[in-house]
């Protein structure tokens, strides 16, 4: 305790008027979060993966972030008045957060917590106390005080210095997490030496970390001076387009060449992302535009998958031995018919009941697919195997493996994005949005609710069927276990987190929510935990999603909140990045 108590004692004369209760509360919340991160397994599991080689693991970084964030929060209200006090508050809250971990390690050394918490292992305590055992109990407190203090110092800095530093920390984390994306292609070029200098097999090297941090801070500083975004926005439209077009083309080339440069693992990851973009765009019509929460979306995916499987499979269950491409239209049509069949009875149900009813349908489909009843047709738990690849090529062809699925899924995602973009502006799309906003008013305006909802449901279902068909092409088999409630929830999360009704939102949602867990195998177990937190956080803090469409933004805020918002936000949400002025433009 003594190490941490010192700075607090120094601050004691200034203690009068301190928001002590607030600080204690923050410390308790921070401590609870830190202990949670340890016990739920995130800290010990990610201790295996380096953020900066030999210096800090991702697990430790998670704890450091907790200290830092709570130190930052502690200092925030004081930063205006007195910077040293803000820093002291950070030190105090950080140390308190750490003290909880000390408590965990000490309790754990006496009582065997493993009987309840699987992760409360001696390895975890070693991690916390730096291998010193009970004599290292001061370690979390000291680290907490330092990291929390840094947070407190950071919050007290002027915006001009603080934001570039935050950008630096942010890009340090991003580069160390996703360094592999740069490292892998660099290794096959003459830049291999540089790649080894900057990146370890996972995470950054120390030199790489310094370089990334310094250069991103420098870029952020330059960005603040030059304000490129504001300049671009101030340009006339034709010039802006001339400037943006090459960037778009460059992005397109990168996206197209990506799997060839990155090898199979990354191609698989991106093929999965592309599949989820497809699913997300489908649900985006049902949920995002028409406002129908469908928790059984996987049913249509399953229909598409099983249709293709049955029509193309070379196993005994195969019915027609069609080629993949001949089967795809059937998959889409059957999925749409199925949506019609499900939609007819349930679409008159009110909103929240609809969600549960669709969930029930999804479960019925899953259970039936795996049941003995339909075993003769669908193969029961053994599923259907031996499904040919969409593009049959030899094993060493450049289109073999997930690469072809990547291109196929991407091409379809582009088509579907175009279709839903055009639909949104159409009469039908506007009817959907009218229904989403208020069914009664929409009906009063002459919109046939059932027809319009059915169309949304069927189109969404058709897209999901397409995604199911492609996924079968990717995997080459289909099992009842691939029809999971998790998949439906996954897609709902993508649409909600990305932004209901927004196509860029869906793409971003898929990249973040699917790409991230796919890249980190350790993350798989925590994927849905992460979704749960993301869903709650988005609903509470940003119900319109990360990249909202204009209308959803208006709809999901109550009238009072709208009054508080900037008018600029409401009128031009596309330019959201700039109107926030100084702070937003560089972050």
């Amino acid at each position: 305790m003594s190490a941490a108590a010192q700075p607090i004692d120094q601050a004691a004369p200034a203690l009068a008027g301190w928001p002590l209760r607030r600080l204690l509360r923050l410390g308790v919340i921070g401590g609870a979060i830190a202990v949670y991160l340890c016990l739920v397994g995130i800290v010990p599991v990610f201790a295996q993966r380096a953020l900066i080689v030999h210096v800090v693991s991702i697990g430790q970084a998670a704890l450091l972030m907790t200290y830092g964030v709570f130190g930052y929060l502690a200092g925030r209200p004081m930063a205006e008045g007195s910077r040293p006090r803000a820093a002291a508050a950070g030190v105090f809250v950080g140390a308190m957060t750490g003290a909880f971990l000390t408590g965990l390690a000490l309790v754990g050394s006496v009582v065997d917590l493993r009987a309840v918490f699987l992760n409360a292992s001696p390895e975890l305590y070693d991690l916390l106390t730096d291998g010193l055992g009970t004599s290292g109990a001061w370690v979390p407190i000291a680290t907490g005080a330092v990291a929390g203090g840094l947070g407190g110092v950071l919050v007290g800095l002027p915006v001009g210095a603080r934001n570039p530093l935050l950008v630096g920390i942010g890009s340090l984390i991003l580069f160390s997490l996703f360094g592999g994306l740069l490292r892998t292609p660099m290794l096959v070029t003459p830049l291999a030496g540089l790649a080894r200098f900057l990146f370890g097999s996972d995470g950054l090297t120390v030199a790489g970390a310094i370089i990334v941090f310094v250069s991103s801070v420098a870029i952020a500083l330059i960005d603040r001076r030059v304000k490129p975004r504001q300049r671009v926005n101030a340009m006339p439209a034709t010039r802006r387009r001339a400037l943006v077009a090459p960037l778009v083309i460059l992005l397109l080339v990168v996206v197209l060449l990506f799997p060839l440069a990155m090898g199979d693992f990354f191609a698989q990851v991106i093929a999965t992302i592309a599949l989820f973009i497809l699913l997300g765009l489908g649900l985006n019509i049902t949920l995002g535009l028409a406002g129908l929460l469908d928790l059984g979306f996987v049913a249509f995916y399953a229909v598409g998958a099983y249709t293709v499987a049955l029509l193309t499979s070379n196993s005994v269950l195969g019915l027609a031995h069609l080629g993949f491409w001949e089967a795809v239209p059937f998959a889409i049509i059957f999925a749409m018919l199925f949506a019609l069949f499900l939609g007819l009875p349930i679409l008159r149900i009110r909103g929240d009941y609809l969600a549960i009813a669709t969930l029930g349908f999804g479960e019925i489909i899953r259970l039936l697919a795996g049941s003995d009843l339909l075993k003769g047709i669908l193969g029961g738990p053994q599923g259907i195997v031996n499904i040919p690849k969409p593009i049959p090529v030899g094993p060493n062809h450049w289109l073999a493996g997930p690469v072809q699925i990547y291109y196929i899924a991407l091409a379809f995602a582009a088509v579907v994005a175009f279709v839903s973009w055009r639909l949104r502006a159409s009469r039908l799309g506007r009817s959907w949005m009218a229904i989403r906003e208020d069914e009664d008013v929409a009906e009063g305006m002459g919109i046939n609710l059932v027809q319009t909802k059915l169309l949304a449901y069927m189109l969404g279902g058709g897209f999901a069927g397409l995604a199911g068909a492609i996924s079968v092409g990717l995997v080459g088999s289909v099992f009842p276990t691939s029809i999971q409630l998790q998949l439906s929830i996954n897609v709902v999360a993508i649409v909600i987190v990305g932004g209901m009704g927004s196509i860029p939102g869906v793409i971003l949602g898929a990249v973040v929510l699917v790409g991230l867990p796919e890249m980190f195998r350790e993350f798989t177990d925590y994927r849905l935990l992460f979704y749960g937190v993301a869903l709650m956080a988005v609903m509470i803090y940003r119900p319109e999603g990360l990249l909202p469409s204009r209308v959803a933004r208006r709809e999901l805020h109550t009238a009072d909140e709208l009054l508080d918002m900037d008018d600029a936000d409401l009128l031009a949400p596309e330019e959201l990045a700039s109107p926030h002025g100084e702070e937003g433009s560089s972050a």
Partner: protein
Amino acid sequence: MNQRRLDRLTDVAIDVFMWAFRAIIILVVVVGSALTLLGGKYTVDDWFELVGRGISLGSIYALIALGYTMVYGILRMINFAHGEIFMGGAFGGYFAATALASAGALSDVISGLIAIGIMIMVAMAVSVGLAMGVERVAYRPLRNAPPLVPLISAIGASLFLQYTARGFFGSGIYAYPTVPFLQATAPIPLLNLRWVDVLVIVTAFTMMGGLYLFVMRSRVGTAIRAVSEDKGTSALMGIDANRAIVLTFIIGAALAGAAGVLYGLTFRQVFFGMGIYLGIKAFTAAVLGGIGNVPGALLGGLFLGLIEAIGPTLFLSGFGVPSVTQLAPVVAFTMLVLVLVFRPSGILGERVTRSRV
């Protein structure tokens, strides 16, 4: 003109479809039951055994359903995380049970019953803690948001609790310790119940009776009903709506926690994903009885339990469907869809206004 004809066509098509839907269901039920009964494969004793199992399962559904029904009554929202609150209770009860079992408390009847009482207390405490946390973090900030927003947040909370449990306890299945005297058959004619079923039924009915009296007679219960009826007016009468809402969550969670222990004692298996499906079934029970309706939850729970226990055998085995018990959840979920489609106000009628949804 064209549009109007199309509209009429859709209406007719839907009516036809809905009648066909009803006809198929009734046909399956009637013909299936007739075939099964005429087939004579099952004796009267078999049916009574299924009935007993159905009542026992239904009592657990009813206990969980009360949480859904009360929260829906007061907030007009589906507390999607309620199944996970039940799961938390089951785990709390499990750890209490293993501790008590290693102390040897489960071997004889008296200490065993006391031990079960302690398990239920622990489970209730865990569930109440979880529910209060969920209400505070995920629901309270969204109280005035459009209806889909709290539902999505609730789904988030459900995922969070599920995978937190998985992180804490792993994905393995935990087996409740055996309680020897509960496994014996109870001397009740025909129903062929084990003592554990008797315990489940008695506990559940006692708790529900207590709850009914509490809600109908006590001051606090009256406050809860007043807030369900009209939040604004009850606030004018000096009722603290927030307190009534938190209390509703606490009561619902306490019952779910008890249900968790009862479930653990009956089926002897707990794992992190157990809450979601049981939760959905319990929600079905709540809707079946009429959401917002306390006696309705009991009725709906029992009805669903019976349908799920008897239904697959009665309706399907007559058609020669293989391994019918596999399809028990299908029957339950079909029931869910049927209720939502054909009678969303439930058997006893719902006690909530439709204003918000």
